[in-house]
């Protein structure tokens, strides 16, 4: 771990200024990811700007929209009565992430900005284009059991690790950002990017931009939802594959559908074509299987993650079954 300075501005504006002024600075909130990365020498910020006490932790609801402050804790949001009632998919996804101790520390903004868990990214003795552009992708020909089947490049095949993000992309959330050039709104699906030739860049955030909140519209998805996370132990493990499924049903006919996957790409992976295929169909296993097949179009596996080509569609079918109680 390198030596660093620590500042704790009291206003968002001051935090943004401090960050914009210093390229080698980082925001820190819960620190559940950044501190690990610093201890392993993966990230070496010279200045930490503590934003955890900025007044950005409110959870508000107006005009059928939830506005969740970026400094709200994962645990607080997951346990919120209104969230449980109106956004149960988000609550399920949050509770599927990490462990109770981590959810008590981790913030909503920090959760969506988690770095990948790719082991090559974490070990400074191994090549990784995300950590050290140009050094090569260790996972491409290496241990790639946890890696992407969609949207990867020959520079990076890592996956985005957050569960919450999978639910937020499915729910059409919007990220609220303040930066040196003012405020802007980013549709959640555009926050994270695919690796392409610049895997070092996880998101579309500009230097100095601070996520202040995320807005989630209250949709019709209050009942037939399920977040399914397939992992190697019952808790505290990253997803092999996860699925956020939300349906609006009328007389067992699907009126509207949302579907997204985690653990399969460099960003939470929305399955728009599969969603379209569900609409207007009866909620049956056959319908779900057809959607799962569409969802997997274009998927490609590497040496150790071919199982995802089968586990992916299976998980989609199971998530939809769980969401609709189809036996």
């Amino acid at each position, binding site marked *: 771990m390198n030596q660093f300075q620590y500042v704790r501005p009291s206003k968002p504006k001051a935090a943004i200024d401090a960050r914009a002024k210093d390229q080698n600075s980082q925001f820190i909130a819960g620190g559940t990811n950044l501190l690990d990365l610093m201890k392993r020498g993966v990230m070496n910020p010279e200045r930490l700007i503590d934003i955890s006490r900025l007044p950005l932790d409110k959870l508000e609801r107006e005009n059928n929209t939830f506005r969740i402050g970026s400094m709200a804790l994962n645990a607080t949001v997951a346990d919120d009565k209104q969230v449980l009632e109106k956004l149960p998919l988000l609550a399920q996804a949050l509770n599927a992430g990490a462990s109770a101790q981590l959810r008590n520390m981790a913030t909503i903004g920090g959760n969506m900005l988690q770095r990948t868990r790719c082991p090559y990214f974490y070990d400074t003795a191994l090549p990784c284009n995300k950590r050290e552009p140009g050094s090569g992708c260790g996972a491409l020909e290496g241990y790639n*059991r946890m890696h992407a089947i969609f949207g990867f490049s020959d520079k990076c095949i890592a996956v985005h690790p957050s569960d919450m993000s999978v639910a937020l992309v499915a729910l059409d959330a919007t990220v609220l950002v303040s930066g040196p050039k003012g405020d802007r709104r980013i549709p959640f699906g555009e926050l994270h990017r695919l690796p392409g030739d610049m895997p070092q860049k996880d998101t579309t955030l500009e230097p100095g931009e601070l996520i202040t909140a995320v807005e989630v519209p209250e949709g019709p998805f209050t009942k037939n939802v399920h977040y399914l996370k397939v992992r190697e132990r019952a808790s505290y493990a990253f997803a092999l594959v996860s699925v956020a499924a939300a349906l609006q049903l009328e007389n067992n006919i699907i009126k509207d559908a949302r579907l997204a996957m985690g653990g399969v790409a460099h960003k939470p992976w929305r399955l728009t074509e599969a969603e379209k295929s569900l609409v207007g169909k009866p909620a049956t296993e056959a319908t779900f299987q057809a959607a799962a097949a569409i969802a997997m179009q274009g998927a490609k596996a590497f040496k150790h993650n071919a*199982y995802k080509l089968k586990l992916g569609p299976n998980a989609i079918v199971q998530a939809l079954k769980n969401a609709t109680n189809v036996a």
Partner: protein
Amino acid sequence: MNEQPLFKDGVVGDRMNRVDGRLKVTGAAQYSAEYQLPGLVHGFLVGSTIAKGRIKSIDTKAAERAPGVLAVITHVNSIKVPGFANRSQPDEPPTAGQPLRVFHDEKILFNDQPIAIVVADTLERARYAAGLVKTQYEADQHATNFNAHMDRAKVPAQAKKNPKSPQADHDRGQVDGYKTAPVKLEMEYVIPTEMHNPMELQSIIAHWEAPDKLTVYDKVQAVKGTQRAFAKDWGIPEQNVKVIATFVGGAFGNGLHNWPHETAAIIAAKTVNRPVKLVLTREQMFTMVGYRPYTWQRIGIGATPDGKLVGITHEATGQTSTYEDFTESTVQQTRMMYQSPNISTRYRILPLDISTPIWMRGPGEATGAFALESAMDELAHALNLDPMEFRLRNYTDTDPDNGKPWSTKYLKECYQMGAERIGWKNRQMQPGTNKQGDWLVGYGMGVGTFGANRGSAKAGARMLANGTVVLQSATTDIGPGTGTVMVQLAADALGMPPEKVRFELGNSLFPDAPSQGGSATVNTVGSAVVAACAALKEKLYQLAGSTFSAAKPADIVIKGTQLSLANNASAKVAYADLIKQNNGQEVAVVTESKPGNERQKYSMYSFSVHFVEVHVHQLTGEVRVKKMVACADAGTIVNHKTAGNQMLGGAVGGIGMALTEGAMIDDRFGRYVTKDLADYHVPVHADAPAIEVAFVDKPDLIVDPMGTKGIGEIAIIGAAPAIANAVFNATGKRIRELPITPDKLI
């Protein structure tokens, strides 16, 4: 042989709370890294980033200039450890070869080998400066891929020397006799490298109290073995090395070897002439302090159509380092578990460019049981027999390996207790036919056995003026509750309440005891404690002279500071008077206790059976252990609470072995890529179901006077195959390479 157990109507057998429980839960218990010494400074290790080759140059200038840094020690400037010149086999464990000589030369033998230690006034500064050390290597082609180098597997040195060793080639009856059986199967099984990760990290404080006097606070399972090893290293008398391990936060075998980081800290302390604390990071726990070796096994097994075994051939090859021969008894149980006219066993080790493995709970037997007990299940299925019935048809009342009678064997009782508790009758013979919603339900069982070993140990007993008896022995308590059960044994042996008895351990100045391993501590040290208590009474008896002369020493009753006789309360004496009689000294004894010749006459083993019910999701392949029953024939149970805890911990370890644990190495770099507890999965609470423990609790008075046989290893041996067998029963899929992760089942 005594028919009656030594203890009746006492506290042995009680669910007594741990004597150190309060210290542990309040944080008052001091672990090796927690001692506050004046002038203490901190070390941080730098590891190599290649697996094999030489250090061409190592630039420490920036690190040396960093704030707070006192020293940066490498092979270039390290003081020479006198014992390195002719260092050969360490005292414990008895592996052939030469332990890594840290900072001795430029050679790299495994990835993340310690190549420098940075000493600074704070941990953070040491860690920061460690990142500034720049190393150039001359790399050689390394070999870390087990399968690619199988042809280099060799017979271990000790097997060559001793054809009777459990690692030597062995044949009973016809070689590969299973091949003559009407029904026969051949299978290969693989267990991956499993990493030691006790909650407490490996840690040491090294303190040279004088140029020839060393004290270490060290996470070890052998304070005396460590004392001998360091005395030899530094060419100083044994009594000049003090090893303290009063509390150990779990070890599981991790502390049965002295590792390079320990010597690194001792070198550093000598260099800066201050106490040096070194705590490994969690990542370093994966690379330099031992692990359960990756092991390939092949079983050939055959039986008659009515389920009588004809033969078993069991081959195993385990990985080791290039500089030490690590061996374990992977194939031993195949020789004695079942009645079979033909048995062949072969054991090999495969040296690779990795660090040395070490015993991990249940050690080789747990690895071997995965193959043997899976194979028994496979053959039962092929014979269309219930797997428990198949085992019963091949049950043996004498040890088929040597013809000796068992000292005791209550394995049938374990089968019965376990089958009842798990609901074995609900098991479907046809796999894949028991469904609950989206989940497939399966039942499985696995047997475990481990030698009921007893060694020699000494214990001291001293009666204080206030009537308290203090016992001491240089054993450790790595978590099983050793301190607690010794108090129970001593309390009953003395006829005193446990509150009046204290047991002290974890200090090399105490009377000699062996390492805490191989499930032998209660058998060995317990025997010494009981003997010391008897010797103390004998000495009190003699000092009392004519007062007690009509009775025997065992009849002495100690109440507070008064001594009297069990059958004659009027014969009494004040302890103060005996102290006067003893030249003003508190009465104290040191006794040694050794096994007799029972091993020549009997075969002595503990036995266990694990029964499990698993649910496997049809679409996602997730396995949930729903219920587990762990039954054990472990002789007298001294404390049902702590013994039960051991069984629970072993069962959870078995879940890890079966379902979640496996370290992955990237062979291109010869470097592990699963190096933290997020990537290397040990079971979490949510993975552990209701686990029921049942003990036969019948004494084995041949093994030792208390009738104990040992629990630590059998708590895990057989658990992993029980789960694998249950997964087969649920799904019809036989997974022969652990861990059984969802990808293997979909």
